[in-house]
């Protein structure tokens, strides 16, 4: 198979065209550029969690040979406030320091060595303020306030009601309670935050940066620095991972500010691993308190739960993460009576916000463990309880949305129920060696894709026939590694019947591509793909019509596209595409189309303070099964087998689909078993990859991915998002498997060997 001659078709595994440059080291990432005459920029961080900033003494730093500029908040033009929904984060700290990673000064220097020396010489004089490190305490009366101009530490609140939850719970035959804690997870993308920027002679700022949201960044940078948006250009090459952690401000405004002060020289900034761990956003840690009411036959009647989240010092989509958790708190089940009260607090802990799945992994961790606890209480099999209550098409979700589109949750569960991992689990568990114990756990998953109803989820696709007879396809939704740019080429190539090497992507560049929303929310292929299909189809029609004019044929219907040519089918004659292009008007060779994702029309009872909101209308579903073996002596959990049945609609490219499932599962296994960005008094205790443990090749199992292919009527070729849903499953599935193996449940993730040993010894004592 030679990729460069491959003819792309929807539904076939097609090697990604970007892979060839990536395996040969030719792909240039934002932090790989070393432009001539560059200046290095770096940040001095506060290193105290909460304080009144008195002075920043930059004199000694400024005197270091090679130091170009030392900037503080006084050098920031404009409001000096960034943020996606609420602009509450200064680029450089003004009066108040709210976290150890707050930037207090920005240094520009000729070399990295002089930069390092200068940063070490900056003295920050500050007066400590009482700090708050626990979200419950932060929300209590009289707690120290993180933002003096914000009435309380409540970052956002979301309250969802359906039916009468108190009455539903009160009349339930069985009531089951559980309380769970999930940790702060670090994205740990291999490419840390970085990029470069330059002020051009005409006064524009060109910023090349790894970001999931170049168009929104452009607006945010302009607003924070008080510049007109037209002055800013954001360019995003292929990225070394993002996972939600590059959805929002990191280096962008700092680079822009540095470039404004570099006399036209290019400025480069790269955060090293420890700085990335310290200053980057994390998955929002959460406490989830659940009460579930059921009939004795296992029918779910009511759910009341309370979610408390720690948003850290700034609103980095914290409210939106909370909204997603609240909407998904009831999982993939019919529950007539629901009340979910969610709050996210400002604290002086590290920044937290988006991470693959938004708030859904947190909520799923709780609700899917509750399902096992309920099943055990009722003496039911875990899958039987789930199958009894699982959402089917036409049902209302726990938030009250009618599922009018594809709904394959039940089929996913049945895939597990008929698999030997499930049917033969008793024998398998009995086969454990001495001092080993085995367990099998399952979880059922749902994931709403795209944004909620309030912020338009849109993309404008563009495809161009070049004069050389080849096609350029805009990939204005960032490819942070998931391969959506490849999928766009595959779609366009299928419609146009062109070889992969006659199609090239145009990567996001706010000057060249057309606006699109962020690379997030399981929407990259779904939303852009819908726009692209129409744009490409229209271009094809125009090409065929033009060919008809050229040959004075009756109509375009007599023509079809073949690789590099238009074929007149009745005569068998081919016209090379470059000849067609040469005679087409330039504007006809460009086709664009705007598409906006559908939103739910159900009226749901939700009170919320955040902007994106709930509910969703298109959901992906999945069911996961894991087989684990636990060492009695060390508490170590080995994940031996993993089965993931996923309804993400039609599979456009099985290889890329599996990449998402396998990658998401292993990132989720890290969340389940080892990953915990531990914090004490606002400071990270796991500052690098030696102390914060992500899975290696030895920790990951071979996984089985079974696509459950529904046909999503609103999706491109029936597709739904698959990027996020896989990460929702591993934590609850592993927790259920560990409980199955040990006979005791551990309510705090990750399930480290220490926690497992403690649980085992507690069980022995009782």
């Amino acid at each position, binding site marked *: 198979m030679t990729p460069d001659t491959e003819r792309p078709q929807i539904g076939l595994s097609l090697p*990604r065209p970007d892979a060839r440059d*990536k395996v040969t080291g030719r792909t240039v990432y934002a932090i790989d550029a*070393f432009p001539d005459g560059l200046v290095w920029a770096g940040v001095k961080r506060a290193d105290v969690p909460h304080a009144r900033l008195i002075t920043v003494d930059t004199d000694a730093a400024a005197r270091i040979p090679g130091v170009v500029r030392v900037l503080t908040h006084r050098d920031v033009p404009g409001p000096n406030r960034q943020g996606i929904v609420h602009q509450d984060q200064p680029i450089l700290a003004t009066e108040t320091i709210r976290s150890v990673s707050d930037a207090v000064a920005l240094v520009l220097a000729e070399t990295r060595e002089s930069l390092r020396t200068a940063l070490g010489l900056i003295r920050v004089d500050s007066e400590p303020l009482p700090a708050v490190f626990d979200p419950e305490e932060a929300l209590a009366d009289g707690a120290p306030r993180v933002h003096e101009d914000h009435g309380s530490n409540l970052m956002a609140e979301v309250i969802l009601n359906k039916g009468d939850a108190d009455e539903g719970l009160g009349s339930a035959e069985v009531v089951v309670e559980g309380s769970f804690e999930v940790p702060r997870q670090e994205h740990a993308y291999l490419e840390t935050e970085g990029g470069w920027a330059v002020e051009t002679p005409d006064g524009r700022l060109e910023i090349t940066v790894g970001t999931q949201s170049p168009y929104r960044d452009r607006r945010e940078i302009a607003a924070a620095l008080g510049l007109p948006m037209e002055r800013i250009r954001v360019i995003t090459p292929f990225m070394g991972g993002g996972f939600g952690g590059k959805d929002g401000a990191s280096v962008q405004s700092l680079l822009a500010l540095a470039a404004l002060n570099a006399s036209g020289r290019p400025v480069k900034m790269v955060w090293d*691993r420890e700085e990335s761990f310290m200053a980057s956003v994390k998955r929002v840690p959460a406490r989830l308190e659940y009460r579930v009411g059921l009939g004795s036959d296992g029918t779910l009647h009511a759910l009341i739960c309370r979610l408390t989240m720690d948003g850290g010092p700034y609103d980095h989509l914290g409210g939106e993460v909370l909204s997603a958790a609240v909407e998904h708190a009831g999982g993939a089940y019919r529950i007539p009576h629901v009340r979910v009260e969610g709050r996210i607090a400002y604290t002086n802990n590290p920044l937290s916000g988006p991470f693959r799945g938004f708030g859904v992994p947190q909520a799923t961790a709780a609700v899917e463990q509750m399902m096992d606890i309920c099943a055990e209480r009722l003496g039911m099999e875990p899958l039987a309880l789930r199958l009894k209550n699982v959402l089917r098409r036409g049902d209302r979700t726990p938030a009250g949305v009618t599922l009018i589109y594809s709904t394959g949750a039940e089929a996913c569960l049945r895939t597990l129920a008929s698999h030997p991992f499930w049917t033969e689990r008793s024998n398998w568990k009995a086969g454990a060696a001495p001092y080993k114990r085995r367990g099998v756990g399952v979880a059922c998953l749902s994931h709403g894709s795209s944004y909620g109803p309030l912020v338009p989820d849109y993309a404008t696709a563009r495809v161009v026939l070049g004069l050389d007879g080849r096609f350029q396809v805009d990939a204005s939704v960032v490819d942070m*590694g998931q391969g959506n740019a490849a999928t766009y080429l595959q779609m366009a190539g299928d419609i146009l019947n062109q070889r992969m090497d006659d199609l090239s992507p145009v990567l996001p560049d706010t000057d060249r591509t057309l606006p699109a929303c962020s690379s997030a929310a399981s929407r990259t292929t779904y939303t852009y793909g819908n726009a692209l299909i129409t744009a490409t189809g229209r271009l094809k029609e125009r090409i065929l019509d033009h060919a008809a004019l050229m040959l004075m044929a009756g109509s375009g219907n007599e023509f079809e596209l073949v690789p590099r040519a238009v074929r007149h089918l009745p005569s068998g004659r081919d016209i090379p595409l470059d000849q067609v292009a040469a005679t087409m008007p330039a504007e006809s060779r460009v086709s664009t189309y705007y598409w906006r994702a559908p939103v739910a029309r159900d009226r749901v009872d939700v009170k919320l303070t955040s902007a994106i909101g709930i509910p969703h209308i298109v959901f992906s579903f999945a069911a996961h099964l894991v087989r684990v073996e636990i060492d009695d002596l060390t508490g170590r959990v080995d994940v031996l087998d993993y089965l993931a049945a996923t309804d993400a609609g039609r599979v456009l490219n099985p290889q890329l689909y599996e990449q998402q499932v396998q990658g998401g599962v292993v990132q989720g296994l890290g969340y389940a078993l080892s990953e915990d960005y531990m914090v004490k008094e606002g400071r990270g205790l796991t500052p*690098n*990859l030696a102390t914060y443990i992500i899975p290696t*090749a030895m920790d990951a199992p071979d996984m089985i991915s079974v696509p459950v292919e529904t046909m999503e009527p609103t999706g491109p070729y029936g597709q739904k998002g698959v990027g996020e849903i896989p990460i929702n499953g591993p934590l609850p599935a592993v927790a259920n498997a560990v409980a199955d193996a040990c006979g005791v449940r551990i309510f705090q993730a990750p399930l480290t060997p220490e926690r497992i040993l403690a649980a085992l010894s507690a069980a022995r004592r009782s």
Partner: protein
Amino acid sequence: MTIRFHLNGRAIHVDVPPDRRVVDVLRRDLGLAGSKECCGSGECGACTILVDGESRLSCLMLAAQLEGRQVTTIEGVAVDGRLHPVQAAFVEYGAVQCGYCTPGMVMAAMDLLQRTPDLTRARIREGLAGNLCRCTGYQKIVDAVQAAAVTSESDHD
């Protein structure tokens, strides 16, 4: 200090401080940005290169240690545009997502293939455990290395 070594088959010399990190010599001084830096402390493997045919972490090596050595970076693996069997397998088997771990992973896999006959999946996983990947979940990387092992073996026949 002038340091002479062979880089991707060509004799070269660089004038750099002897304590300059090799990853900086490659990426900055020689413009070979294919080797990635991701942790700077030997935990991730993204900067892996081959020195005298063995995998080494270029973030933990100093320039002077290259004197007289044969150095291969990711840029020197494909010959005349022809991919090495490991690279070809990475492309074909879907072992590449964001690609940031890929150069180091390819180098580590080449070293592993040279050193280890009879590669089982478990041995591949063990051999690549020093190279972190955050995207793939490793399964397709293992698939690719296993396939490359078969290809390499038949090449020798």
